[in-house]
Every structure is written in C-alpha cells, then in structure tokens.
C-alpha cells in the first residue's frame, strides 16, 4: 500500500532515487535492470524518499539499498523479512520494500519466507532469482532445477528446484507475481503494483547472472521457443492472454479458493513459455489491521510514536497502578 501519495510540490525523477554509490555488479548482471525498475517505480509513484525504507538480506542482489536514495537497511543473510516486518509494524507510515536473492529468500530464509505469508504484513518483497548464490561464487540456489550443472558447479545439482510462487500462494501471500529483469516496463509495473498492494506481496524476478549461470542468460531469455512448429517468445505476459489473478470480492471464500487454484495451476504448469505477471492477488486484512482491535493504543498511535515520557522532565508517563493492583497486597 502506498503511504506517500504524490506531493504537488516536487516531481521526482528516477535519478532522484539513485544514491551516489556506484553498483559493483558484474557487467551484464540482471540486477542493474531490477534496480532501475525499482527506481522508476518509485518515481512513478512519487514516493517521498525519506518515507521509504528499502530492506535487503546479503548477496549480490542485497547490495540494492545502497544504490537507492531512500533510507536503506542491508541486513543479514536470509533475515530481511523479519527485520523489515519489525520496522513496518512499528512504523506503518513508512513504505517498506524488501529486496534480496533467491538463496537469501528461499534457502536460508525459507522459514521466514513461509511464515511471512501467515502474517500478511504490508510489505513488497522482490526476489532476484538467478538460480545461484552469486556473491559466494555460484553454488546452486533453491530455484536451480535438478541435474543442472552451471559452469560454477563441480557436480550437477542433486536437489529439485522449488517453485517459489506456488509456495507463496499456499503460504498466504496476498500478491504473487513473476517478472524478468530485462523486461523493463513489465517489471516496473509489477513492482508498482506490489508496492500499491495492501498486504504481503512477492515479485519473483528472473535475473540473468552472466558470471555463474551460463544457462539462463539474457540470450536464452531472448530465444524463441517452438510450440507445434510455431515460434513464440520465451516469456509472455499473463494479462495479455486474458489471465486475471485478482480476487474481486475478497469476502467470497469460493472466489479466493478458485483464484488460488487457478494460480497454482498456472505456476505449476510446465509450459515451454514462461508466464510473467500477477498470478494471484487478493486484499485481506493485514497483520496490523488484525491486531489493532485488541490493542486499543495502536489505533491511536503507531508504536514508534506512542508517548512514553514527559518531554521536559523525562519522567515515564506509563501509569502502572492497574498492573500493580493485581500484585499488591494492600488489602490488609
């Protein structure tokens, strides 16, 4: 959900979202495309840089926040979601966007990835999916398919590759999409939608790693595939094929169930072409919306703004008398 709607005063350009740090990715890395798309999406949404908190884990991809001119937090390998969730819950006025690698998110971070679905916090999570652990020199990531041997592997991959989109749908993500690092416009639009989405959004971005993944290269993505004698582009856009992943009436459990199944069917399908787009989308109460009824003060203040002291004397303002009464014995 966007919390910072366009301000009439300034009109920000993508370059306003560029920091002065030079990206140190390898030439041709798909990460360049993704960061550009994020910056463009932010510009088109006119997000206020000081209200944006860009999170990441650790990996090549996770250097992203340093290249974006907003508050940025480069956390621990696999832990971006819990960190980001903490910031979002304590200050939901911030627009929290999370970026990171597939190893980071689906490997070491898999437990957080799964459990984030249950919470449906208002976060946009962009995963740079290059099928390898880039920064540690190209080991297999959880999305690399079984038996594949990239040039960086001594032996073929003995693990089946997971389908992160299917898992996200089953885990409770309320927005599940796929895009491609060099499909600039589609990626930017998808990221915009993920940011605008109220709830937990996943964008899995197919990302060439020219240095270690010699199989899923930019060229490979540009190749055409043959289906029944005819050639088609490697990727296609779901919405252009009339696919609609959105639940239009979130109160209708049947529609939710049907749309989930449709999404699972689509993401599990072994097509020759790769579908890009939003597979599933539904607006449901977020974590904070769920807890607010139980914690009255949260309806009045965000956690980080709750008054706790007298500003001049610094005397704590929390009145514990009621809590003390439960344990005091002043009844004799």
């Amino acid at each position, binding site marked *: 959900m966007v919390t910072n709607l366009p301000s009439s005063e300034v009109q920000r350009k993508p370059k306003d979202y560029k*920091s*002065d*740090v030079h990206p140190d990715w390898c030439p041709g890395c798909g990460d360049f495309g993704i960061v550009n798309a994020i910056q463009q999406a932010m510009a088109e949404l006119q997000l206020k*840089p*000081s*209200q944006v*908190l860009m999170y990441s884990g650790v990996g090549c991809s996770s*250097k992203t*926040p*340093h290249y974006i*001119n*907003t*508050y*940025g*937090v*480069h*956390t*621990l390998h696999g*832990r971006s979601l*819990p*960190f980001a*969730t*903490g*910031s*979002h*819950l*304590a*200050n939901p006025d*911030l627009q929290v966007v999370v970026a990171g690698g597939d190893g980071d998110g689906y490997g070491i971070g898999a*437990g*957080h990835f*799964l*459990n984030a679905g249950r919470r449906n916090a208002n976060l946009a999570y962009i995963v740079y999916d290059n099928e390898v652990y880039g920064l540690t020199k190209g080991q297999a990531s959880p999305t690399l398919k079984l038996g594949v041997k990239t040039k960086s592997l001594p032996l073929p991959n003995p693990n089946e590759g997971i389908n992160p989109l299917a898992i996200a749908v089953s885990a409770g993500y309320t927005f599940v999409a796929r895009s491609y690092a060099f499909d600039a416009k589609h990626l930017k639009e998808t990221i915009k939608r993920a940011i605008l989405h109220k709830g937990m959004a996943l964008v899995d971005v197919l990302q060439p790693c020219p240095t270690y993944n010699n199989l899923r290269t930019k060229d490979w993505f540009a190749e055409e595939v043959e289906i029944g004698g005819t050639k088609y582009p490697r990727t296609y856009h779901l919405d252009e094929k009339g696919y609609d992943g959105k639940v239009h009436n979130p109160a209708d459990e049947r529609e939710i169930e049907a749309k989930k199944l449709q999404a699972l069917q689509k993401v599990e399908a072994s097509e020759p072409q790769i579908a890009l787009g939003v597979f599933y989308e539904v607006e449901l109460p977020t974590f904070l919306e769920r*807890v607010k009824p*139980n*914690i*009255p003060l*949260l309806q009045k*203040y965000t*956690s*980080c*703004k*709750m008054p706790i*002291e007298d500003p001049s*004397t*610094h*005397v*704590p*303002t*929390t009145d*514990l008398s*009621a*809590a*003390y009464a439960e*344990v*005091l*014995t*002043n*009844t*004799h």
Partner: protein
Amino acid sequence: MEITNQFSWMIGGPQGTGVDSSATLFIRSCAVAGLNVYGKREYHSNIMGEHSYFQVRVSENPVHSHVDPVHLLATFDDETARIHAHEVVPNGYFLYDANVTKPETLDLHPDVKILALPYSQILEEVSAETGQPLAKLQIMKNTIAVAASLAMTCFEIQYIEKALKGIFTGGKAKLVPLNLKVAEKAYACITQEIKNAFPYRLVAKPDAPAQMIVNGTTAVALGKLKAGCRFQSYYPITPASDESVYLESHPEYGVNVVQCEDEISAVCMAVGASLTGVRASTSSSGPGFGLKAEGLGWAGINEVPVVVFNYQRGGPSTGLPTRHEQGDLLFSLFICHGEYPKIVVAPGDMTECFNDSFNAFNYADQFQTPVIVLCDKALANNTASILPFDETNLRINRGKRASDEYLAELASRPDFNGKYPRFANSEDGVSTRSLPGQENGIYWCTGDEHDVYGHISEDPENRIMMDDKRMRKLELAAKTIPQDEQWKLYGPENADYTVVTWGSTKGPLLDALPILQSDGISINVLQIRLMSPFPAEAVSQILNRAKVRIGVEQNFTGQLAKIVRMETGIKMDHMVSKYTGRPMSETEVVAALREITKQKTEKVVLTYGH
C-alpha cells in the same frame, strides 16, 4: 517453645493438579498479613502428571531464599510424600491423604508428627452443601492443604479470605465463598492439641507496609512497560515466555507482542522495530538466546538500541529446561563472532529485575548498542513478597537523536549532500541518530563495515575509526552507569572473607550473611550486576582488601570467577558451586561457607534438593 514467623512449608503434587495455585494462596495469605515470603517453584518439563512442588518460606523480616528444612509438608499424592518425607524436621508435621499414602512406609524422621487430612470427606460435605459436583471440587484439595497448614500455625483465617479475594476477582469472585467454606472446614480439623504439638506460629503484622507478590518475569515485564517498551517479539520457551505472555495479557499498555516463527526472527524483528524509534525488546532462554547471536552482532555494528533478555536454565542444549542454572554468562558475554560493544546486566532479585529492565532501555538508547539482561530460572519462577517498586528516580533517556530542526539545519548547509552522517565519528563513541521517516535524515545500515553514511567500506582507515568509535562506548558506559548499578557490596566494607556472586545466588548469600556474622566470621558479599563493561577496578580493590575470596555461583565451571580473573587477574581462593538444576538454599550456603572458613575446603559442590 514457640517459633514465630520463621516457617518453611512445602506442598507438592503432580503437575497440573494445582500445586502452583496452593502456593499462590499460601503466599498471598501470608503477605496480606504483612509477613515476608519467598517461594521456590520446582517442576518437570511436562504439562501434566510429573511431580512438582513449591517450597515457601515465611519470615518476620525480608527474605531472599529458601531453606532446606521443611517444617510442614502438605501432600495429597503419594509421590510427593515419598520424595519429600525425609525433609521434614523433627517436631515438624506431615499432612497427607490416608487414601493414597501409608505414612509408615515413608522415610520420616521418628520425631515428625503426622496428620491425615480428610480431603475427600470435606469435599463431599461441600458438594452436598453447595450442590457442586464432586469432580469439580477436586482442585480444592489445595485449599484444604493450605488452610490446614495455616491453621496449624494459629494463623488468622481472615487473611486467607483476604487472599482469596485478591486472587479471585471479576468473574471469578464467586469462587471466594466456596473456597472459604472449604478453608473453614479444614481449619476445623486442626484441634488445639495439634496446634500445641506444632511449635511454629505465624503472627500477622497488620501495620507492615503493603507488599507486592511477584516473580521475576512479572517484575521484568513491569520494568519494560514503565520504560516505554512498546514492541516485543518472542518465540515461546520456558521460562522466558511467561514474561511475553504477561505483556500480551495486558494489551491496555499498547505493547505489540509478536509471536515469531523462531528466535532469529524475534531478534531481527525487534532490531527492525527499534530502527524506527520504538523501544523494542525480545526475551528468551538459552537455546533461543543462542539463535540471536547474529542479530546481536548486526545490532552492534549498526549501533541499534535493543534489549535482549536471556532467562538462563539448566544446560547445555535442552538440558534441564525447567530447572535453574547460571550457565550462560560466558556465552552471553562473548555471543556473536567478531567484536562489538555490548552491555550485559545481571539482576539478582525481583526489585533489580524491575530496575534493570527499566535501565536496560536507557543503556540501549544512550550507548546505541545491544543490551543483554541475564536472568535465571530461580528469578523467573520463584515468588517473593517485596516492597512496591520505587519509581521516584526513574527517568527516561533516549540518547542522542536528531531533531527535525537539527536535520533541516544540516540540510540547509551548502555542503549537504543529501545524506546524513548517522555514523559520524564522535568523542564518546555515540553518534546522533536519525529515524526513517525524518526528512534530511536518510542513511543506510549494513552488517558490513561502513562509512559515516552507512555505506559499505573496506577502507582500512575507516575501519579503525569505526571500530575505535564503537568500542569507546564501553568506556562511556563504564563512566555513565551509576556505581550501584554496577556492583553492590553487602556487609562491612572490610572483611576477611569476600564472597563474589551474581544473579539470584545473591538471595541465599544475603540471608546467610547475618548468620555467618553471628558465628563471628568477618565476611561480606560482592554482587556483580554489570558484567560488561566489567567494573574491573572496583572489583580489584574490593577483592584486594579481603584475605580470602570465595566465588559462589550456580554452574559447573565458575563462570563469574573466570571473568573476575580475566579482568583483574585475581583468582578465587575457594568456590561454592551447584549444578543439579536446583537453586542454592540459605542452609546450603551457610554450611558451605562455614566449611570453607573452618576446613579451607577448596571447592564445595552443593547437591541438596529434589
């Protein structure tokens, strides 16, 4: 010969049959009467059925530990009888249910008197009188045991009534008369003859000041609330989760308590929350605390205030998960690879639990670094009656935070480059932090070494500047934290024997001190509260004044003694340890210290208690 207001009582039974609530009633009754109480709780890692017990000590004066002898043992199952019968002192009493226990089969001292309580009969009567089904009344065996016990001390029943009213409030108030009826029937069983045969008396002190009855997890939770902690993330674990559940059960204070998928998530979430400015905390015990290593190091290098509690329990690994130990000091002091400043605090009683919990948030904000508070199972689960917390001097210190005006002023300078030097070098090691959302305050965080803006830097000169800056905070903390939050010396300033201790072990030592002094032993007790930065100079001075130094702590290796030696070079001459998972009693400590002073035993390992 009557003994007044010096009473040691024990009740036991299978887990889940109300042992804890009996103890609560007993403790509250005594405290309401103005007496001082300390209750020790022992239970298995089990939900229902295994043996648990509560030992309560009542005293005329404030009391901080239990004693080994049991004056009165109240049982309603046979297991408790078999396990604890031998602990009852001569002239003490053993209460039991004749339907389940044959006292002649027990290991009772011949001078112990026995009394069968008519549990079933009383409940049947009450059932008949009130129409309540008998099955529902079974839990009231507890009330019978408590009331009969108190009756034997000639304790006025009115205090039981008051206690019941304090326990059953709101919708449960209707349980007061029912319980009182049961209590009255139990009272009626205790004849004057029995009372005469029992020398222990509990005499109310109606003018005594009001007391609080708390355990450590509640005291900590209250300290967090007072400090303004409004975000708590946790993952369930014994005995830490009671604290989080307390906060969850008091939503009116506005704390968002998030149950996470694991402890890694819990610490990261607290750190993420803290970055926005909220005071944030997370609590766990050993196994979960260990999973927080990486998050702590990240908070260290990113200078994020965060408060992490570790309620120590019997280790290693799952160990003795519901038992007591002080086994995590070294791990907590050195947790996480690499080097960063951390503040480590160890409260020693319920009042310190409250104060250290409050202070921890100030330390975190002032020094912008993680604060670890080390509690232990005895603090967490034992219960004490104490004077209400003194709030007079509590002040909140949020440390160096950039105001919007300050940031705007910086931004108006011609050399402003659009980012804020959040990690700027500073003499005291602390930089002024901005918060996400503040205009002109944009900065970055990273677990990598970084420049003043928070961007990755592998430059060696920057590295030295940053490492030096961060580590200087320890010097600042050592200077800033008041002396009595660093260490406390009990007893005379100069003494032949100085005992060094920490955490809940302070309790039995404080109680032992006057006894040993009355033996004629010149002795004092040094409690260390601040473990990092360690008050090495003061500890050196104090230990150098003593002729003999004795370390008393509840672990195998003598962890505080190791730290004292590391920091001062001074070795303990003697050690008293216990690692059975059961806390030390006053009785044990007195005996051990007597043995050391008399026989110069190098190391005494204590073993008492089931």
